[in-house]
């Protein structure tokens, strides 16, 4: 199947956000936006559901917390008890820094790993971007014709009215 996509670029984040809002107001939904930096409020305009990554992070961090605490108690009180300064074998205060670190480490690493896996990203992957300038000063949006349900000439004019400087049509195999 082939899908027809229109890419349009804007001069700055404000006009991009304005155009995105206008298009949504006219019932034309965007499939994506490309900006050199995070634009506040863009997620809502794109109508993206909230990320479920925090849940992954919470579960991983909880596992890190419990597992590291258990491991320390097991090593220092059960498997090979060592008397340190006359303190109890299972000295919870001494274990808290390590527990904290492992909680943060596992939460962070698992979140990044799941993020990459879910987005099918990996180091060295070719970037899927409308133009190289989205990494410096380009602000692009992508509209799918089928979703737009309007004639491409009408869409072009609408985008131009909203201040788009470059408009490009592309057909992608999916």
């Amino acid at each position, binding site marked *: 199947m082939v899908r027809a996509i229109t890419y349009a670029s804007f001069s700055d984040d404000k006009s991009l956000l304005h155009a995105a809002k206008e298009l949504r107001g006219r019932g034309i939904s965007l499939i994506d936006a490309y900006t050199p930096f995070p634009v506040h409020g863009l997620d809502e305009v794109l109508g993206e559901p909230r990320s479920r990554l925090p849940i992954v992070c919470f579960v991983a961090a909880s596992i890190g917390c419990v597992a590291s605490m258990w491991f320390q108690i097991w090593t220092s009180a059960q498997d090979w008890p060592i008397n340190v*300064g006359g303190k109890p074998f299972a000295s919870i205060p*001494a274990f*808290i820094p390590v527990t904290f670190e492992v909680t943060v480490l596992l939460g962070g690493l698992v979140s990044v790993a799941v993020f990459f896996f879910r987005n099918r990203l990996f180091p060295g992957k070719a970037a899927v971007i409308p133009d190289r300038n989205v990494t410096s000063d380009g602000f692009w949006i992508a509209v799918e014709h089928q979703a737009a349900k309007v004639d491409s000439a009408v869409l072009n004019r609408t985008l131009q009215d909203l201040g788009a400087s470059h408009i490009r049509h592309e057909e992608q195999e999916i």
Partner: protein
Amino acid sequence: MSSSFQLPTKYRNWALTLVGAGILSTVLGFIFSPTNVWISLHIGAIYFLSAALFGSFIIAVAEVSSAAWLAPYKSVAECMTSFLVPGGVLLIVSSLGGAHTLFEWTHAEAALHHPVLAEKQAYLNIPFFLTRLIVFVGLWVWLSQKLIKASRNQSPNRVKWAVIFLVVFAFTFSFASFDWIMSIEPHWYSTIFALYCFSGFFVAGVSCLTIAVFVLDKRGFLSGVINENHYHDLGKFLFGFSTFWAYIWLSQYLLIWYTNIPEETTYYLLRTHNDWDWLFYFNLVLNWIIPFFVLMPRAMKRNREVLLRVGICLLIGRWLDLFVLIAPKVFESSKVTGPSIGWVEVGIGLGFGGFFVLVCAAALAKHRHIPKEDVYFEEGLHLTQ
């Protein structure tokens, strides 16, 4: 946007009732248990002086970092600073009037016969203590006035005053925490103590700001200015800094527990025996465990009703924190074993609260409460997370 601010009569009457209850508790308390009164007055003065100081602190931070998030409700922080003068006066009253109850180093024979206290006489003596107190509070009042005036007029000097305030604040706040709180146990010291006090100061200040914004918003004084994105910011501050407090709490505890040196452990021995232990650990529950788990989901940080409740929890927690910092040693010196909290503490605490509300509301009514002149106001209105 809404009309100019006026404290609703119902609130005003409540605040006046609380002040009355506070005065009554103080008077009756002097008859029945003067020790409790001096402790409560000292805690109340430090507590609300800190809240007032937080107002200037957060404005200074926002000015230095060119932050827009504070701009829509900057006036709330401004009005909090109006309690600096009354708070300073009350602190002079509590620390001079209660000097012999609170501070062991004011006892001449104890100070002369104990080598540690004799050495510390050069720093810990009443004239120098009072001088420092007046200089610190005086600097805070003067710099806050300069800063707020510059911020209101959007003068180009406002960043300069903010920077001066923050540098002075760092030193004066540290020494103030040594003087007013740590010197209650003059044999003991902790090098992280000022940071510990600062973390509590920050959490309590944000709680105070959040509750004030909530009440003003609920009564319609901030309608069209505040939305859930602003609450989200405050929620993140509460969440983050309550965790920061717990981090510093543990840092202090851990090092003293680990090294186990008698002159350092006395502090924790006192607080984990004779029924102080449950208050000592409950402090951690109120100030960290409850806020941490309640505020973890994003939706909770954006819900102002939740923030109000967490803010109240943290404000009670801050009072308990100061009580656990100040009271155990004072009770021990007065031959009282175990904690004693009763109507004196509640009455005086609420009395201070009522007075604080009256002073701040009067200050807020005097000036505009929607700072439209601020260059970041418009940007601050359209915050998104």
